[in-house]
């Protein structure tokens, strides 16, 4: 092959590869993109229906319930304005604790309970996922109070 043909071949192959990659990316992106939805929006019914999304906030103190000897767990997550009940079945991450930040993957059920298939808590005590920190700072509520009591004035603050 002459150098020019080589270059053409290289360019052609690269273009083909990138075209396939781009097509594939766009198609599969649709299915795998998971939006982060704030707890207040979830409470107001503004969330993607029948697909997975993420929620995040603080675990409300005293809200963690489990049946003796079962791996099913139920707790509430708050952004200091609203709360959403969450259910999960499985082993929780080490840093999952009442009053701490948490991110959950899953979808809303008919019963308005968020069924999580994955729970993430950060490895670092001081670190909070940026989206959770963001969501909390929008609602200028007293975090201590919110964690202790759950929802404070859900619905009045529209974000």
């Amino acid at each position, binding site marked *: *092959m*002459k*150098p020019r*043909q*080589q270059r053409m*071949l*290289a360019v052609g*192959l*690269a273009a083909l*590869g*990138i075209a*396939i*990659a781009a097509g*594939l*990316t766009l198609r*599969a*992106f649709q*299915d*795998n*993109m*998971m*939006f*982060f939805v704030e707890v207040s929006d979830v409470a107001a019914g503004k969330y993607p229906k029948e697909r997975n999304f*993420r929620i995040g906030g603080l675990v409300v103190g005293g809200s963690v319930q*489990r049946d*003796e*000897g*079962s*791996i099913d767990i139920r707790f509430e997550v708050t952004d200091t304005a609203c709360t959403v009940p969450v259910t999960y*079945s*499985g*082993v*929780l991450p*080490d*840093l999952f604790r009442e009053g701490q930040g948490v991110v959950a993957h899953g979808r809303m059920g008919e019963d308005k309970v968020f069924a999580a298939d994955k729970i993430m808590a*950060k*490895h*670092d*005590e*001081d*670190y909070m*996922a*940026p*989206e959770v920190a963001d969501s909390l700072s929008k609602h200028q509520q007293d975090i201590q109070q919110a964690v202790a009591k759950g929802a404070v004035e859900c619905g009045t603050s529209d974000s």
Partner: protein
Amino acid sequence: MIPEIGQFALILALALAVCQTIIPLVGAHRGDAAMMAVGRTAATGHFLFVAVSFACLTYAFLVSDFSVLYVANHSQLALPTLYKVSAVWGAHEGSLLLWILILAAWTLAVARFSSGLPVAFAARVIGVLGFLSIGFLLFALLTSNPFDRLVPAPADGGDLNPLLQDPGLAIHPPLLYVGYVGFSVAFAFAIAAMISGDLDQKWARWTRPWTTVAWMFLTLGIALGSWWAYYELGWGGWWFWDAVENASFMPWLIGTALIHSLAVTEKRGLFKSWTLLLAITAFSLSLLGTFLVRSGIIVSVHAFATDPTRGFFILSFLAIVVIGALVLYAWRAPALDSDVGFSPLSRETFLLLNNVLLVVATALVLIGTLAPLVVEMMSGGKISIGPPWFNVAFLVPMLPLVILLGMGMHTAWRTQNADAWWRVLRIPAIAAIVLGVIIPLLFYGRVSLMLVVGCGAAAWIVISALIQPVRSLLRQKGTAGITRSALGMSVAHLGMGLFVIGVTIVSAFGVESDQALQPGESIEVAGFEFHLVGLSNVQGPNFSAIEAEIEIRDDGKLVDTIRPQKRQYLVQKSWMTEAGIRAGLDKDLFVALGDQLGQNSWSVRIQYKPLIRFIWLGALVMAIGGLIAISDRRYRAGSRAAEAPA
């Protein structure tokens, strides 16, 4: 006093780095031998002062000098000595100092082993490396000084993040950085070649061993990180497509492409400008990784604490390096192209395809990693891209890559006779398909299209990698055997084959199960019986733990007893899971303790992971292949000196 010496040494290192950059580059431009000679001396001094600085910080950790803020935040009196040392690079400031030390060490190595290179070329390489050092030294001194004082000093420190208190993670960052930073040498070689406007096959021969060594370390570093995530995070996977994992994986992919492209440039004098571009890209992606990890811009389990000034500094430095290099490239590279051709069926074609596919794979990983950032900037929505997307997208370029790999190894340079080619490959091809069906069916009792493709591809790579070494073994003494270079290639590809079979089998047959378990109870997972004998309390140096004793039985026969722990570290009060693993080449049996579910019952995560060890074993074999390849005779100093132009 010692920390001040450390800081002072760092400032002196910066001064020397400035000398190391300017004097040799100007000297090379003017043809002034005395000025060019300054480069080596300055590089040696630069390394010494950085080493002193690093030693001072290490000393501060060893004697628990909590008047140093960084030490106070990341160490503690009761921390075992090994982790006091590894705590030096346990967070941002210290790991940056480690990065600087490794860059200085690479520079010193280039200065020491460059006697065979033309003087002006070596001077330019050292100058470019000096420039990179200036950037990182300024970064450390201006935004991330590890020697900042804390007054008054606390009585005890805040402890090292318990996750990092693990031997695997103690050596993971150094290995990874040696790899990351090592690509700076290939980058400097590329820049030096573009400045001088002179790039021949000798250039590729000089660049190859350096690139291969960096690639080896990066391979080991990534594999070690993956292994650590597997047993320490307890999520049961070995790769999560986390942004920071991707940040280390992208330079690896491009580095792999670079190694192959350099082979073409060395053997045939082709792909020159492409090779340059890859050398620039590999290092730029290393810098991008640094930016992603240290700016806090991306959500990741590995992210360091956020500081906008740091992110801004690295982004600016990244922009200077990348734009500078690309401008130079646009100006100089077109003049370097050569006029030799090759036929469609030739090794050149396969290596070209290898490069295209690896670049596409890198682009996909990059898209997936940066998409959340781009979407957030454009629409404000916060999204994340799940591992399923990466798994599928990545497979698209990888499948053709592994199949072409086996063909390319047995294709001659320039042009290959199609009949002869087919004669070599037909039996391995048939054997691979047969094995692709037999392996899953015989050992795991199930077969599917993806399993046949995965196992067949793995068998195909392994067989075609073994053809050459086996032939050379069977050959009679006295005739020419296989070169180290070719043997290295075969071994590295063999590692790739082992990796592919590991990934295929563990993805298809791995079992994960979360269950509740009480002492005296048993549960069955993947045909094995897990029996919880009891729980007890144990004390570690800086933690207390609850330890479970679990017996694993297969058909009533005791396989092993494992003891997973739930540790509470005393200073940070944080809980950590220490999984119990029965490791074997054929399978891992894994139990991690979850939470106490009531009086006596615990949640446990039980996993059966067949052939998962092949994933890391494959990476290790790949790195060994690299080691064999660089031991090839033609890279040795003597022969290099003999061939270097006067």
